[in-house]
């Protein structure tokens, strides 16, 4: 029995099985999303909803991609995450210097399902550019792929207290399905979703142990 277990584990390792944490959103780095008005995450869509979306991509083409968007820039709350929690169990105050870099947390989370996986992430940027042009909102957004220091502070943690640094924010959710044709033959199809974190709010609070 042990041999079978070891062999199975070895097989998983050899197959490069990627075990990721389960989250309610289907995005490993986004713990929870609550839509402000309307919107639905890919993980909550039924098979029939996805089938309808694939049908909505329209007639096959000779060559290239066909997309159908289910949600475009749907406003949502990105439910908090504790960036750090420090506990002082001593009888002396402790000074904490903290700096958070923008690169320490995500700005965009991309999920792809189906045969488009692996190659589609680059396509998302093109889709986003196209949508930004077509769906002119009151605001546009920038990415911050930089190592610029984002937030730094010093704080004194009192004896027998816990200090929590918490982050929450606003996100835009866009998802859809895509099909890829070569010489009129369907080569790839799948669903995708990207979540852009557009505003982050920081809070710091102290709790007694």
């Amino acid at each position, binding site marked *: 029995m042990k041999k079978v277990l070891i062999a199975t584990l070895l097989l998983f390792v050899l197959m490069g099985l990627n075990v990721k944490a389960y989250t309610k959103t289907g995005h490993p780095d986004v713990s929870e999303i609550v839509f402000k008005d309307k919107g639905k995450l890919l993980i909550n869509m039924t098979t029939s909803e996805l089938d309808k979306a694939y049908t909505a991509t329209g007639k096959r083409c000779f060559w290239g991609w066909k997309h159908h968007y289910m949600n475009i820039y749907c406003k949502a709350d990105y439910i908090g995450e504790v960036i750090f929690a420090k506990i002082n169990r001593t009888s002396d105050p402790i000074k904490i210097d903290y700096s958070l870099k923008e690169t320490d947390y995500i700005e965009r989370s991309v999920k792809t399902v189906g045969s488009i996986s692996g190659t589609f992430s680059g396509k998302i940027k093109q889709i986003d550019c196209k949508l930004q042009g077509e769906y002119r909102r009151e605001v546009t957004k920038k990415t911050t792929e*930089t190592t610029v220091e984002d937030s730094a502070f010093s704080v004194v943690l009192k004896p027998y207290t816990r200090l929590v640094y918490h982050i929450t924010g606003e996100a835009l959710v866009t998802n859809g399905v895509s099909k890829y044709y070569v010489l009129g033959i369907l080569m790839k199809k799948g669903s995708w979703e990207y979540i852009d974190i557009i505003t982050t709010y920081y809070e710091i609070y102290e709790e007694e142990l």
Partner: protein
Amino acid sequence: MKKKYLFISLLAISGIIVVFIMMRAKMPSTVTVSTIPKAYNCVSLIGEDDSITFEIFADTKKSFIGEAENITETYLANEEGERLKLKITAIELASDEIIINKKRYHLFYFTFKIDFYPATQFSFEIDSALLTINYRSDAMIQINIGSFSYYKFTSFVTAFLSVGKLKGLVNEIDGCKTLAAVEIGLSNNTECDLIITEIIPLDLNVAFSSSDRILSIDLNYRFDDEIELLLGYPYQFTPPGSSVFTYRLAAGEKVNFLIPLKYYRLLALNKLGFIIEYTVGGNAYQLIYDDFTFFNTRELSHKTLEALVLYTYENH
């Protein structure tokens, strides 16, 4: 076989032509730059290094402005010509492109170290701050970045009073997401009464409206709730009036205040430090909290972008 050689030759010639064209591609003759004016501030201890990052849009990636190695001098100056020297540490190009007045702009992050090391407590406030960058080629760019408030202190904390909570309320005023109020949790760590006599924000554009403060220990609110919803009456962000903050904090007591802000000049403000003045047993003390980032946004309002001042320079 001949066809194969012909094809390879054509491919090689095409490749050479492409490389030649790319090498010959000229830099644009002008470069237009801009930035969104913001309320920049920095609070730190004497002896600490400080840095500041400005977001600068440029209509081309190929220009002298992004050449950090060619920068000879940088400073922030006010209209009277007083200067604060800066030293470039990095110029980074963000991947996204921003449309301003139907033209494509690239976003650069210019990070500078503040090249000034005071030995004593110091403050420097520039209402209308001009960022000047001089280059080796005698080129120079000058951009109004908004305001800059810089404070250096000898020490921050005192043992008698401590800050146990910080949370910002963010509202959109004239298309600009900015701090509308700040929640500050305070605790009296002494065994006698402590009197808070003043809370002063460390940014030249704002003042706390102490008369509009509310006790917020049991107040549940979202970060982006409208301030009027929490106050229960209409609220004007300008102009600041005179309001005095007085509160007696009993021994060991904890209290949270949500204190609205008033703006002298409306510039986006996302981080803020403050001074709390208080007395214990008739002696006056100060608690200084360094600049805390309450929020960050990647949203850029079209209204703001369309109103930007564009600066065009010859591309050296």
